[in-house]
């Protein structure tokens, strides 16, 4: 198999995939589940339950009529004991439904279809939305939206993203090995919905066994003409949506655009599995595979965890900690978010939870030393940015310069900070610059809109006056 890759930029990281060979183990449902009402990118959900209500597994807890949104479901059966703001893995407090487990494990009625022939693309999209499926790679973008491209956009390729390039994480790898059928089915569903000609499963070349397994499954099903398995070079951030598209198809998603602008949809393999389960089993997204790893957790491994399980429960169930826990990271070490409490719950976008002790401070020193202009950040940026210059501009509060240096095109992969010998917080500052620019743009757009409105109103009045005359 040919190995694809993008250029320039990126770097090879220590893989640290200790849990590579650990088969998925289901954790027990938690005694109390904390389910945030917003677990996706988009409009917030309004609660549909009250305190004291009894819910079953799969009961809808909240939803929203907004187009970009996904409902959330109860992941355990029991009683709603609180609806209040709770700390979420994003670091913000989010309205959450707290359910006390009755350990009856009762499910709501779930029904799937037996074959794809029975169901129309529109019904598939609706079902996927109803089941609350979002991208499981981390961004948690509602899948139903991705599957409804605007009229006129033709999608020719669907890429299944199995290039799990973050260190430590092995969730996607295990999904490909243990749920290869579901992954392929999920891809078939997407191809049907999007009327795309071709599906591509991209796997990093450090996971050749998964690629071969998938290839064999595809051959068995006689799908070789429809679905292709390709290897991509093991390099961070190979699994980034934009990098993957460039590596495999040679296309570049335009700045501030989406993959669908170049006729592509990229979907994480875990999401494909969830889609397949939603369509064929009718199962809403109530649990997901998570890699539990790090230096201070006793039994690292891959676990199927119910959405809403607090980290403290997970620690207990997997056997506790060896040493003092100093850093708790949701997601991979490159892009993940450090947590301030062990009470945060697992959400739909949680692909891994990493536990580190004191060594976290040598892994990522806080202290910055002066920039020596070594140009490593420039050489390694997968987007072709000049991180050092954006960083300087941000420190001087020069938003205009940051903007002209294309700060908004940053994919926040963390490579610049990783390679920096002076240990400067480049990614963090570029991220902040990016946010400040976007905020300023929003303010300006709002100002402009208000101004236009005022002018329109004045003109209207003027017209009315003239009519009055």
């Amino acid at each position, binding site marked *: 198999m040919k190995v694809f890759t993008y250029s320039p930029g990126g770097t090879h990281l220590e893989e640290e995939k200790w849990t590579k060979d650990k088969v998925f183990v289901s954790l027990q449902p938690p005694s109390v589940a904390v389910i945030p009402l917003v677990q996706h990118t988009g409009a917030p959900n309004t609660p549909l339950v009250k305190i004291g209500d009894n819910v079953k597994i799969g009961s809808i807890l909240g939803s929203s009529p907004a187009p970009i949104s996904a409902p959330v479901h109860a992941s355990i059966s029991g009683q709603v004991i609180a609806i209040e703001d709770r700390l979420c893995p994003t670091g913000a407090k989010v309205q959450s439904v707290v359910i006390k487990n009755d350990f009856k494990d009762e499910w709501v009625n779930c029904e799937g279809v037996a074959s794809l022939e029975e169901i129309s693309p529109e019904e598939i999209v609706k079902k996927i939305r109803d089941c609350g499926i979002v991208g499981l790679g981390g961004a948690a973008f509602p899948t139903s939206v991705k599957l409804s491209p605007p009229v006129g956009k033709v999608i020719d390729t669907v890429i299944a993203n199995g290039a799990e390039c973050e260190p430590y994480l092995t969730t996607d790898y295990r999904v490909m090995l243990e749920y290869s059928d579901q992954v392929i089915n999920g891809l078939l569903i997407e191809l049907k919905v999007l009327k795309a000609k071709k599906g591509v499963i991209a796997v990093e070349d450090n996971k050749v066994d998964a690629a071969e397994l998938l290839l064999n499954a595809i051959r068995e099903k006689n799908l070789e003409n429809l679905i292709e398995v390709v290897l991509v070079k093991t390099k961070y951030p190979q699994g980034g949506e934009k990098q993957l598209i460039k590596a495999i198809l040679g296309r570049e998603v335009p700045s501030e655009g989406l993959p669908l602008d170049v006729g592509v949809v990229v979907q994480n393999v875990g999401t494909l599995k969830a889609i397949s389960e939603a369509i064929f089993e009718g199962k809403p997204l109530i649990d997901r595979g998570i890699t539990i790893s790090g230096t201070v957790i006793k039994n690292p491994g891959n676990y199927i965890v119910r959405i809403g399980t607090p980290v403290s429960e997970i620690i207990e169930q997997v056997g506790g900690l060896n040493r003092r826990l100093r850093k708790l990271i949701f997601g991979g070490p490159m892009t993940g978010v450090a947590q301030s409490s062990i009470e945060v719950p697992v959400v739909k976008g949680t692909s891994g939870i990493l536990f580190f002790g004191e060594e976290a401070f040598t892994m990522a020193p806080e202290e910055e030393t*002066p920039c020596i202009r070594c140009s490593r950040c420039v050489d390694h940026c997968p987007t072709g940015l000049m991180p050092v210059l954006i960083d*300087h501009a941000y420190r*001087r509060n020069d938003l205009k310069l940051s903007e002209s240096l294309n700060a908004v095109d940053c994919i926040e992969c963390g490579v610049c900070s990783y390679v920096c010998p002076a240990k400067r917080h480049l990614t963090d500052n570029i991220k902040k610059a990016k946010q400040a620019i976007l905020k300023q743009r929003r303010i300006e757009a709002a100002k402009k809109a208000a101004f236009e409105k005022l002018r329109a109103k004045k003109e209207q009045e003027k017209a009315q006056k003239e009519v009055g005359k």
Partner: protein
Amino acid sequence: MNFGEYLVDLAKIFVSSSIINNIVLIQFLGLCSYIGLSDSMSSSIGMSFAVIFVTVCSSILAWVIDHWILIPSNLQSVLQITSFILVIGSFVGLVQIYLRKTSPNLHKAMGIYLPLIATNCLILGVTFINSMNNYDLVQSIVEAIGASLGYAIALLLLVGIRERLRDSDVPTFFKGKAIAFMVSAIMALAFLGFQGMIR
């Protein structure tokens, strides 16, 4: 001197005034605006163009006055300074008025630098250099182009470095004009590498 030698001579004048004996770094003319403007890229570009234009025109005017009026009437040593500065001053004034009336855009781009130029010792200096070396008209024009280009080169190089130094932890002692002089010192040092290239 045949034509070929003359051309070589012109090339030497040009290279000498623009690079080897750079008007700013080696001959120290036009320092006020060189240092003053060197913290802004856009105004240095504007100033560079304005200086090139005015220097060339003034040199022609000054040459004409020198050779057609002052030398024939034997008044060079007495009236040269006065007439040169008057000519340049009024020329700059006229250009300003003309630009404002005819092309507002150009005036906007160049106009704000014109009053600064009138007192820029580079322009007057070049006319004196031409006269001291007894350059003919073509040589004077080449000297003027070379010298003003040399000014532009030095200014733009300094602007580039100062723009970069905004992000550096320059000691308070040297912040501002002082560091511009220190950078110029090293630039002048580097330009010494060309010294003596032309006898």
